């Protein structure tokens, strides 16, 4: 059960980040479509967050892999 719990927890964590990314992408898209100068400035921050989240997911999965293998 410990193995599964570990996996499950990891999946949920990753999924929450992925969900967040989904909405981030949506926002950036909409901002682009709006063609407003304000929104372009906002997009920089949004894209930064998105990139950070992507690498977060990468790290999460490498952790998952390590714990999975060792476990």
């Amino acid at each position, binding site marked *: 059960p410990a*193995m*599964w719990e570990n*996996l*499950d927890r990891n*999946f949920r964590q*990753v*999924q929450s980040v*992925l969900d967040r*990314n*989904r909405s981030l*992408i949506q926002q*950036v*898209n909409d901002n*682009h479509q709006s063609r407003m*100068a304000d929104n*372009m400035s906002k*997009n*920089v921050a949004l*894209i930064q967050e*998105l*990139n950070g989240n*992507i690498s977060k*997911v990468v790290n999460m999965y490498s952790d998952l892999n390590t714990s999975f293998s060792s476990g």
Partner: protein
Amino acid sequence: PDDVVGILGQKRFWRARKAIANQQRVFAVQLFELHRLIKVQKLIAASP
């Protein structure tokens, strides 16, 4: 996979597999989107 099924059990193995496969797919899409959005952002910045 045999061994994993042994440890996790059949049902959980498939759940985990689905989760991994799905997350991998979503991740790939989002990675692509990230690249695309950055590109678009730069293009827009180039021609305000």
